[in-house]
């Protein structure tokens, strides 16, 4: 770092050190464009894990394609902003010949499209989350989890504003650094936001009490009790019991990759959805894995079906279960 002039007055820097700094700026632009594009694709892959409905998957793949095209196009455009490419960091000394694109216009277009895609990616699942049959409080929580991308959008707008300011100021280096920092923060925030759903599972796994305080889960010790109370199944209260939890996995070809997110307890999103399965609007696209609790008591076996409260007919094909948030 010292070699590149860190901590030294720039007037004392040699020409190659200045060129190095400009070269790093150039590389930073390319990393920024690529990183943001891939982060949107990652979030869309996450949607594919959660939402199994075919029409939504097609829509998601389409947006993913647009994001991919955006990433490739602006990667190339940024890379080829000057001809020869080295003009991007060599031009400052006026000793090199070549030409560059209108960097400002290019930056604004890239930022505007990026903001539009951010909004699209964030808004994509909202309609289907709103259609979920769950309590308003829980629904708002789920939508909030999917809506944290608003922070990325806000930072994108701030960055675009700093880019516009950059083009109209005499204090150019300072303002460019400002835009560069917002670019960095945007990537970092998009990573954090993209990882949040997994964090929720981690919290639920290791700190179930904390989770219960935020209303997402509680009372692990009451596991299964609500199935009993809601399904009107007669169960002996005296016999020792041994429970086995079963999950019916999806059978369709393209659903093999669906991943059962860890089932926390009977107040989890999955359980809530399962319990309300009879009331569920078929348009709701998050579908819970159906759980069957088999309870053995002495010589008798009581089977409870969380779906309809009736004994499960094992000769029939299982109802299809999907993943949940």
């Amino acid at each position, binding site marked *: 770092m010292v070699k590149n002039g860190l901590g030294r007055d720039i007037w004392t820097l040699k020409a190659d050190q200045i060129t190095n700094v400009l070269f790093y700026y150039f590389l930073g632009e390319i990393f920024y464009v690529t990183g943001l594009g891939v982060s949107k694709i*990652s979030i869309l892959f996450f949607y594919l894990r959660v939402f199994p409905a075919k029409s939504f998957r097609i829509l998601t793949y389409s947006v993913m394609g647009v994001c991919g095209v955006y990433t490739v196009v602006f990667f190339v455009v940024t890379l080829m902003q000057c001809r020869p490419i080295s003009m991007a960091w060599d031009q400052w000394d006026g000793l090199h010949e070549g030409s560059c694109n209108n960097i400002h216009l290019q930056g604004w277009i890239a930022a505007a499209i990026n903001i539009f895609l951010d909004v699209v990616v964030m808004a994509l699942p909202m309609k289907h989350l709103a259609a979920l049959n769950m309590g308003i409080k829980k629904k708002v929580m789920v939508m909030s989890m999917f809506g944290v991308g608003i922070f990325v959008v806000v930072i994108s707008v701030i960055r675009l504003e700093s880019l516009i300011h950059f083009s109209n100021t005499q204090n150019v280096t300072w303002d460019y*650094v400002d835009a560069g920092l917002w670019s960095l*923060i945007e990537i*970092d925030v998009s990573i954090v936001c993209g990882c949040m759903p997994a964090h929720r599972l981690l919290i639920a796994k290791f700190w179930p009490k904390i989770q219960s305080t935020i209303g997402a889960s509680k009372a692990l010790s009451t596991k299964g009790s609500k199935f009993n109370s809601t399904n009107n199944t007669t169960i002996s209260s005296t016999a020792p019991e041994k429970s086995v939890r079963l999950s019916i996995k999806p059978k369709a070809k393209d659903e093999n990759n669906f991943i059962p997110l860890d089932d926390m307890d009977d107040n989890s999103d999955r359980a809530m959805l399962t319990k309300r399965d009879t009331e569920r609007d078929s348009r709701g696209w998050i579908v819970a894995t159906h759980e069957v609790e088999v309870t053995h008591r002495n010589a008798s076996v009581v089977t409870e079906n969380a779906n309809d409260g009736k004994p499960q007919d094992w000769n029939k094909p299982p109802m299809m279960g999907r993943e949940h948030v």
Partner: protein
Amino acid sequence: MAIGIAGAVVAILAFILRMAASIGKKGRQVSWDDLTMFIVVLIAIPPAVFTHFCKTISTNLWPPFHLQRYSG
């Protein structure tokens, strides 16, 4: 400039926690979204380092970049 490094550290920690949720038999399965996010994390690291390299230019308002940007 410390913001750049701090942001990258927070992002890396977020990704590590994400992958921690996949540990164990009952952990969430690793999939394409994890792979692509891992790529993003890798991509986010170099610019953070670059800001540290380029600290001088932000503290000294000298216009080499001005020349470079306006001559196109």
